């Protein structure tokens, strides 16, 4: 199987993660061909999940399709990269009915468009107008600080590192002062 995939899709990137889990990374235009091939020839009948991972530094999303054989003993992760701007990839709904809901989820969380999926409406959020929340540039704490308020009354919190430093300095100063005072005292006594 690996040889066929390597020849056909010109990739060397097949990993055996566990004995029951393989992973391959292919070009974006070849991914559906690979999925269909796995489905037709190697009995990967079930689409388990579609996941997405935001690699903002490399400016792409890694979309992973996880397929499982009909006896559920082997899984195959088929990964491809799509650009972050205007992210879109064709829908799999025509082949797998359950892809609809997974794509709907990703559409909502990452803003990826799936042409061919008829039902890309909101799933978990309601009236959401901000950046899709799972994109890396969306900062949830900043969003919370802008839109909601926490309970007041938690004053008195100290920055412990600073406080330690300050106390140490204080102690040093005290010690120095004490020393000085002692010296002065001794000087005075000497003077006397």
């Amino acid at each position: 199987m690996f040889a066929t995939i390597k020849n056909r899709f010109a990739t060397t990137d097949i990993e055996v993660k566990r004995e029951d889990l393989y992973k391959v990374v292919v070009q974006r235009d070849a991914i559906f061909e690979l999925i269909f091939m796995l489905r037709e020839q190697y009995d990967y009948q079930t689409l388990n999940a579609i996941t997405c991972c935001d690699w903002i530094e490399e400016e792409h999303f890694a979309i992973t399709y996880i397929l499982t054989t009909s006896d559920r003993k082997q899984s195959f992760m088929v990964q491809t990269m799509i650009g972050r701007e205007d992210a879109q990839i064709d829908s799999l709904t025509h082949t797998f009915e359950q892809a609809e809901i997974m794509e709907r989820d990703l559409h909502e969380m990452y803003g990826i468009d799936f042409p061919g999926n008829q039902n890309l409406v909101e799933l978990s959020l309601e009236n959401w107008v901000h950046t899709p929340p799972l994109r890396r540039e969306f900062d949830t704490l900043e969003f919370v600080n802008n839109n909601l308020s926490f309970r007041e009354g938690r004053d008195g919190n100290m920055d412990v590192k600073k406080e330690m430093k300050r106390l140490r300095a204080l102690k040093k100063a005290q010690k120095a002062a004490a020393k000085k005072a002692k010296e002065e005292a001794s000087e005075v006594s000497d003077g006397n």
Partner: protein
Amino acid sequence: MDEGFLKEQQVMESDLNSETSHKSSVDFLMDWFRRRSIFVLAYGTGCGAIEMPPTFTSRYDAERLGIRGAATPRQADVIIVSGYCSYKTLRRIIRTYEQMANPKYILALGSCTVNGGMYWDSYNTIKRLEDYLPVDMYVNGCMPRPESILEGFMALQKEIGDGKISSWQKYEDNYAFYRKNQEAVLGQTVAPAYDADWYLYDGGL
């Protein structure tokens, strides 16, 4: 610095200073019945709902204390906000609360209703329930054990029996404040307003 809950002492003192309310004997009798019969709306709004079955079924049997479930908001006295509250749920809770008949009470479970709890930095949950609805009793825990929930109910019953709770009145009086907060997180979709005439129809024939 005192140990334990910090404000507890202060609250107890303030209770002593407050004026004792003058109740007519009918009110007194009514409160007596109210505290013995509490219908809880069957709405599991958050994770706390998982400790409700043990509370209401045979292990802890809340019905001993006159607490039982009610199917519809029209017949319920208490709505339990069990933990975190996403925007989508908050809208339903507000709607449900407003449909309940007076007098009505809110019991809030867990850390999340107080100051965000473990979802304090989540973009989809509210942090302080009291901004949106008047809360009568908070129960500590994540999740509160059934004993804690019962304790919360008993505290609520005591307050009801003393006739001290009038949070629904507070909600009507300060509706503008609550409405403003609700609109701040939910946008204009909270409607219809609570003072729409079909809500405040008072009494039957």
